[in-house]
């Protein structure tokens, strides 16, 4: 890829990969933000986080088939996911905030099994495709032969909007302030009258919701299949490790970094395939074992 | 003139904009106890952490037995002859007193974790380690508790265990962070007697709030307020220093 004798074709290819990388990164951010918040504030590691992504995708497929509208499916799915997250926190997770990481690892691993089976019972084990909504099913032409799907841009757009909303929520609202206070010093926050239980529920439900939304909007691109939870979970963990636990900003920077490194890595050095991201993680670990933005 | 074993010069530690320790210098001589006092938040624990390697300094130097140790890892500083006890009891609670001290004593052997010989030999059979361990327990006055689980001994005895573990590595320099913390009258007197016995052959730095103990033990006194040294000298000098009286001792007494 030469910069100075810019071939339009080369540039278009570069742009496509760039947009793909950013899109992947933003999607990862949706998952990583929830994971890092839940861990940073409540101290819980959740291996089943990828399952929420998977359940979101299956819900998108199922409801789209029912209502013939992806948009409606996403709205319904989001509500269900948030309620589900709230109940899960209230009924199970809140008893594990002070437990060993080992216990949390086991608990959430058990949940993975349960979620997989529930999905299997409800919706089976088949792979499904979800149609891109008609309105968005076109591409912006870049050259004679290359174009970029509008839906992917919309995906990225939605992620950006949600990221901005998250930022505003956490830094500009009273709820956000309470969340940050709770993360900083739980006892003090409670003494000041902040309802910590409520905060925990909100944060957890938010995390689950974001993961499910990610699965839903990604479903037309990635299709819907049983193993999709675990493959995204691992990338999510890498993002959180690189970014630093508890830092949403770190998760954003790290997610974009991972998205770009993975995309360009696969294009530029195909022999390494998916290794590029792990090499990035290994490199970060050598200098900042607690992540780039560790608080 | 006593031998200078540890010399810290112009130590500074910043956390963001805040200087927890600001241009502090401390010298520790053999057979001398140097007490560091000051109100809470004065930076005494931070200073101790800088000297023991738990925190790297932002600026300044530390020479231990002639070698520079600023920014080194705690384990290498320990191996160079520095022992440190903690204000918040930092022992192995589930182990017996013997096992607690034995581990500290074992570290002196400098085993390589990669040497298969030490994977299959018996830890109990290390005679030198056992001797060292027994001696440290005896020095700290815990012989009667040797096989008791550390979590079940009294608070005062746990503080003694803190000291025993520090002694088991046979250090020449001792940093003791509030060894009398939380002790009743009788226990405190015991501890003071122990510290007095330890003075010989060691250079000691004592961070303490208990003023009776400080004036009973200290050969040299440094007063810290807000990260800086406001006075340093013999206990009598420091006691009569108007700055010190205003800032600290006046309120305490």
């Amino acid at each position, binding site marked *: 890829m030469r910069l100075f004798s810019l071939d339009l074709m080369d540039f278009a290819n570069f742009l496509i990969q760039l947009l793909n990388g950013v899109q992947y990164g933003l999607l990862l951010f949706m998952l990583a933000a929830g994971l890092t918040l839940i861990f940073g504030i409540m101290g819980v590691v959740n291996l089943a986080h990828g399952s929420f992504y998977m359940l979101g995708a299956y819900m998108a497929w199922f409801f789209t088939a029912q209502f013939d509208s992806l948009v409606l499916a996403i709205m319904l799915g989001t509500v269900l996911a948030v309620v589900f997250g709230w109940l899960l926190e209230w009924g199970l997770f809140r008893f594990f905030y002070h437990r060993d990481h*080992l216990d949390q690892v086991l608990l959430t691993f058990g949940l993975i099994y349960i979620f997989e089976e529930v999905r299997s019972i409800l919706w089976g084990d088949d792979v499904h495709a979800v149609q891109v909504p008609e309105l968005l099913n076109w591409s912006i032409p870049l050259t004679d032969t290359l174009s970029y799907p509008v839906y992917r841009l919309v995906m990225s757009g939605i992620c950006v909007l949600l990221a901005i909303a998250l930022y505003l929520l956490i830094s500009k609202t009273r709820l956000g302030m309470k969340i940050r206070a709770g993360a900083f010093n739980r006892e003090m926050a409670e003494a000041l009258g902040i309802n910590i239980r409520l905060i925990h529920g909100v944060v957890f439900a938010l995390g689950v919701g974001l993961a499910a939304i990610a699965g839903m909007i990604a479903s037309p691109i990635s299709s819907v299949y049983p193993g999709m939870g675990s493959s995204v979970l691992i990338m999510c963990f890498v993002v959180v490790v690189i970014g630093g636990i508890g830092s949403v900003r770190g998760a954003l920077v790290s997610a974009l970094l991972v998205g770009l490194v993975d995309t360009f890595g696969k294009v530029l050095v195909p022999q390494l395939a998916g290794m590029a991201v792990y090499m990035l993680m290994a490199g970060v670990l050598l200098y900042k074992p607690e992540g780039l933005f560790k608080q | 003139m006593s031998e200078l074993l540890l010399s810290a010069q112009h130590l500074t530690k910043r956390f963001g904009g805040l200087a927890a320790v600001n241009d502090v210098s401390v010298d520790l001589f053999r057979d001398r106890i140097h007490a560091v006092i000051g109100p809470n938040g004065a930076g005494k624990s931070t200073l101790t952490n800088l000297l023991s390697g738990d925190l790297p300094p932002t600026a300044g130097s530390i020479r231990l037995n002639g070698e520079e140790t600023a920014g080194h890892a705690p384990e290498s500083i*320990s191996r160079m002859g520095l022992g440190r006890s903690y204000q918040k009891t930092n022992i192995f609670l589930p182990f017996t007193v013997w096992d607690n001290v034995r581990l500290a004593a074992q570290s002196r052997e400098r085993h390589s974790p990669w040497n298969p010989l030490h994977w299959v030999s018996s830890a109990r059979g290390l005679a030198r380690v056992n001797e060292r361990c027994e001696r440290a327990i005896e020095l700290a006055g815990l012989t009667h508790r040797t096989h008791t689980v550390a979590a079940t001994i009294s608070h005062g005895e746990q503080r003694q265990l803190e000291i025993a573990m520090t002694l088991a590595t046979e250090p020449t320099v001792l940093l003791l962070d509030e060894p009398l913390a939380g002790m009743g009258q009788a226990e405190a007197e015991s501890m003071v007697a122990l510290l007095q016995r330890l003075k010989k052959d060691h250079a000691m730095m004592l961070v303490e709030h208990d003023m009776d103990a400080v004036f009973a033990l200290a050969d040299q006194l440094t007063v810290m307020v807000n990260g800086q040294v406001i006075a340093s000298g013999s206990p009598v000098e420091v006691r009569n220093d108007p700055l010190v009286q205003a800032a600290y001792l006046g309120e305490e007494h």
Partner: protein
Amino acid sequence: MSSPKATLEKLPRGVQILLALGALALAAFPFVPMEGRDFYLQMLTQMMILAIFAMSLDLLQGVTGLVSLGHAAYFGLAGYALAFLTPADNPISLWWSLPLAAAASGLAALVIGFFVVRTHGIYFIMVTMAFAQMIYFLFFDNKALGGSDGIYVYFKPDATAVGLDLEDKTHFYYFTLAALIGVYLLLRRILFSPFGRALSGIRVNEHRMRAVGFGTFGYKLAAFTLAGTLAGVAGYLWAAQTGFVNPELMGFHMSAHAIMMVILGGMGNFAGAIVGAFAFEYVMHFFKDLTKHWQLLMGTFIVLVVIVAPRGLLGLGERFAARKGDQP
């Protein structure tokens, strides 16, 4: 936040006797006439192999306190090593292929450990998982390494030099039993060695260990490498026994199962790992026979264990004894 728990290290007399009886029972089993003997022989062999795998993790988790979610990587790698070493038309000698395969796993553990051991707590859990997944995808995505289909091991290793025909299920069974006992005895020895004592200290209070002069990074890395090597021994045996390796052997589920096995029986004494491996496999087979949706049962079982008996059967026993002691 990991709580430094006391683990049961010196096994009570009763447990020692039970262990000895168990070993005798395993030794006697092939002589018992029964239907489907071959099937049970294979099943027990697999359980013993998994017990070795679980014990290797116990060194890391129960003794040193390092929760690795990627231990299966070293299990699978040695299996693949055997698969690559075994040509299509001949068996290879056990005597150099086993050490070589285990060394390959050990080397991988050393390299990965170098990066991973510098992290703590939750980071450690996540990065061990990440690197194991990296290895998983390395094999999954590469046809040259067998891809998702895996590789066959056409011949069991050749041990005829000592009169063992490993193609014979009974011979293989006894070889595995010997390996199980050998690894158990080695690990018990390590537990009470200076190295093992240091690892226990690291589990309980790493900070103080450093303060008294232990280079804990080196100790943790050595434990990680040794655990990986022993996992390799198990993986080699697995590949030899089943005649087949695929990336799932290095996958996340395998690693999580190992953790479960170690927890179930009680951590830190290796006997618990053996019991846990047998128990876990038995439960899984039981559920699989019961229903197509066995994962639901398995998941519920795991969740229940965490809620009711997070320190395994041993933990239950300890708590029970403690409560009895509280009564007037």
